[in-house]
C-alpha cells in the first residue's frame, strides 16, 4: 500500500509540475470524508468555496494529514471540519480556540487549524480569540465572516454592518460592527489577512502562508450567506453579492494611499470600507517555543 501511495504521489507531483494544480476530483478523493456527503450548505453559500481554498492550500504545502487536527465551534462554517478526512474536534459554540490550545500545547507536532464563524469567533468566543492571539499560539484560524448568524436563521451578529437587517434587528441594526482582523492584529496574532471570495487565488495563498507561519495566523474570509443574510438585506443574486463586496472593501495598499492623499469628504466615505489583503506578517516566538524553553530551563 505504501508503494502504491508513493507512486500516486509521484504521479501527482509530476502533473502538478506540469499544470500547477491537482483537479477537483483528486482533491475530493484525497481530502474529503465520503461518509459525510451530502453537505449541509445552501446553494450559493461561500462556505464550500472556503473549503476548496483550504484544501488547495493544504495540497500546496503537502500537509501531513495524519498529523493534522481541524477544530471548530458551532455554526454553518463550523461544520467544515466534518468534511475533511483528518482528526477533528467539532466543539461547543465559541470555544474551539480554547480546545485548540490544549491540543497544540500537548502535542506541538500537530498542525492545528480552526474554522470559525463571525459569531463563533468574536461574539461568544471573543475572549478565547483575543487570548489565543495574545499568546501567539501556533495555530491557523480561518474565520468565515458572513456578517450574520447563519445557522440559527439570520440573527444579528457582532459583525453585522450598522443599518443592515437581521431577524433580531428587524428595524435595522443600531450597533457598530466589530473588525475581527483589526482585533487579531492588536491582540498579537502574527499573520493576519482578509479577503472576499471574489478573489480567485489570494485567499488560498493567505491560507497557505497562515499554515506556514509559526504563530497565530488569522485569515478572515468575507463569504456570502445567500439565505440568512441575502434575503433580509435584498442582495438578489451572487452577482449582486460580488458588487456588494466591491462597494464595501478596498485593497489595503489602496486604502492606505487614499488615507494619505484623498480629500477630506472623499476619505469620510472610503474610511468605512474594509481593508483587504495581507494586513500583518511578522515573526515572533510562539507560545509553544516559549513553553519549551522554560521546560528546558527547569526540568529535573
Amino acid at each position, binding site marked *: 500500500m505504501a508503494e502504491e501511495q508513493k507512486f500516486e504521489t509521484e504521479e501527482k507531483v509530476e502533473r502538478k509540475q506540469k499544470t500547477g494544480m491537482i483537479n477537483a476530483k483528486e482533491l475530493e478523493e484525497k481530502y474529503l470524508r465520503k461518509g459525510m456527503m451530502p453537505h449541509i450548505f445552501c446553494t450559493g453559500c461561500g462556505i464550500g468555496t472556503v473549503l476548496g481554498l483550504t484544501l488547495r492550500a493544504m495540497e500546496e504545502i503537502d500537509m501531513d494529514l495524519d498529523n493534522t487536527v481541524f477544530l471548530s465551534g458551532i455554526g454553518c462554517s463550523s461544520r467544515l*471540519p466534518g468534511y475533511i478526512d483528518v482528526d477533528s474536534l467539532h466543539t461547543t459554540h465559541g470555544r474551539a480556540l480554547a480546545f485548540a490550545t490544549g491540543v497544540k500545547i500537548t502535542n506541538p507536532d500537530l498542525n492545528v487549524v480552526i474554522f470559525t464563524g463571525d459569531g463563533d469567533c468574536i461574539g461568544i468566543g471573543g475572549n478565547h480569540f483575543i487570548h489565543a492571539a495574545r499568546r501567539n499560539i501556533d495555530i491557523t484560524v480561518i474565520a468565515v465572516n458572513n456578517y450574520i448568524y447563519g445557522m440559527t436563521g439570520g440573527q444579528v451578529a457582532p459583525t453585522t454592518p450598522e443599518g443592515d437587517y437581521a431577524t433580531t434587528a428587524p428595524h435595522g441594526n443600531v450597533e457598530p460592527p466589530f473588525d475581527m482582523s483589526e482585533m487579531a492584529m492588536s491582540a498579537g496574532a502574527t499573520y493576519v489577512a482578509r479577503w472576499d471570495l471574489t478573489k480567485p487565488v489570494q485567499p488560498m495563498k493567505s491560507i497557505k502562508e497562515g499554515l506556514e507561519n509559526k504563530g497565530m495566523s488569522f485569515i478572515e474570509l468575507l463569504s456570502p450567506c445567500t439565505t440568512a443574510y441575502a434575503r433580509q438585506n435584498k442582495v438578489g443574486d451572487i452577482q449582486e453579492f460580488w458588487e456588494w463586496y466591491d462597494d464595501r472593501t478596498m485593497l489595503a495598499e489602496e486604502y492606505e494611499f487614499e488615507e494619505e492623499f484623498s480629500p477630506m469628504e472623499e476619505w469620510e466615505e472610503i474610511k468605512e470600507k474594509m481593508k483587504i489583503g495581507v494586513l500583518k506578517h511578522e515573526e515572533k516566538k510562539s507560545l509553544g517555543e516559549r513553553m519549551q524553553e522554560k521546560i528546558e530551563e527547569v526540568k529535573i
Partner: protein
Amino acid sequence: MIGEIDLDKAKKAIGDRSQFIHGDTAVAYGALLAGCRFFGGYPITPASEIAEKMAELLPKIGGKYIQMEDELGSIASVIGSSWAGAKAMTATSGPGFSLMQENIGFAHMSETPLVLANVQRSGPSTGQPTLGAQGDVMQVQYGSHGDFAAIALSPNNIQETLDLTIKSFNLAEKYRTPVMLMISADLGHMREMVEIPDEVETFERKEPKVSPEEYIPFGKGEYGKEKVPEFGIFGKGFRTYVTGLTHDEKGFPATDDQEDHDNLIRRQVEKITDDREELTDIERRRLDDAEKVIISYGITSRSAMGALKEGRNRGEKLGYLRLKTLWPFPKHVIKEISEQVDKIIVAELNLGQIYHKVAEHAECEVALADKIGGEVHSPEEILAEV
C-alpha cells in the same frame, strides 16, 4: 508530544516521602503520580493551590501547565489535551464549576477522559469563598443538560484525597469519561501527614489495535470494557471526527433519528451504571447491630464519626456509612442497609441533596442533618436528628 509517563520523575519532583500537606497539594501530587501531564486552570479560592502546585511541578517533569482566560476555556483546553494524548485535569470551585457545565456535557458526549477536582465552597453565586460546603454534589450529575452518568468520588482525609485522585485518573481512562473529585474548602486547606506511595497502579488508555477503517470510536469496545470504545489519540492516523452532536458509531452526526440518539446515550450511561457495584466504595462501621445509621461523605463524615462514638457511649445502637463514591449513586447499598435499620440520618453541608437520593431508595425513615454557612457539623448537631 508529552513524553512517557515517568513515575520516578514525578516522585522526584514531589520530594520527601512523608509530607505534612493540605488537600489541594495532595490533589496535585496524586495527579502527577497518576500520570497527569496537562493542567488547564483558572484561579479560584479554595482550589487555586492545586493550580499553583501544578504550575510549579509540571514543567519540571516535561508536562504542560496553562492558565486559561476563564473556566469555559480551562475545561475546553483539558478536553483538547486529552484528545492529543495526555492525562489531563483542571480544578475549580462552585462559580467555575457552574461555568464549566456546557463543556462537561461535551466531555460526556465525546467520551473524553479527564479529571476535575472541585474544592467546594458555599453558594449560590460567589457565596463564602473561603468556607467549605457540599453544595455541588447534585450538580455533578444534573448540572449539564441532557442525560449522562457521572462518576464522582469524595475523600475525607488528606491521604485519601491523594489516593482517590489517582483512582479518579484510572477510572477516567478505564471508562473514557470525565471523573469528578469532590472535596471542600475544609479538606483543601487542612493539613495532615501524607505518605507518598512507592508503587502506583495506573490504568493506561486503551488505544485501538485495528486499522483506521475498522476503528469504531463511539461504539462498543473490541477489548477492555465492552461498552467503552478504544481511544484513537489525535495524530496517530485514526482521523476521528469528534462532535458534541448526536453521532453514529463512526462519529458522524446523526441528529434526526430517535434510535441513533437512544443507542448512543444509553451505551454511554450504561458503561458506567452497569458497573455500579464495582464502582461503589463505601466505609461501614458498627452496622451489625445498628438500629439507626448515619450516612455521610467527605468532611462531614468526620463529624459523623464523632456522633457515632458519642451515640454509642449513650447506648444508642448507631451505625455509620460513608460514601466514597457519590456517583454512580450506590442505591443498592442504601436499599440493603435500609432493610436492616429503622432510620437513616443523612448529614451533609447543604440543605439536602444526597438526602433526596437516599430517600428515593431507602425502605425506612430518612432524616436530614443539614448545615450551611461554612462550618462543619458538631457531633451533637447530627445526634439531634437521631
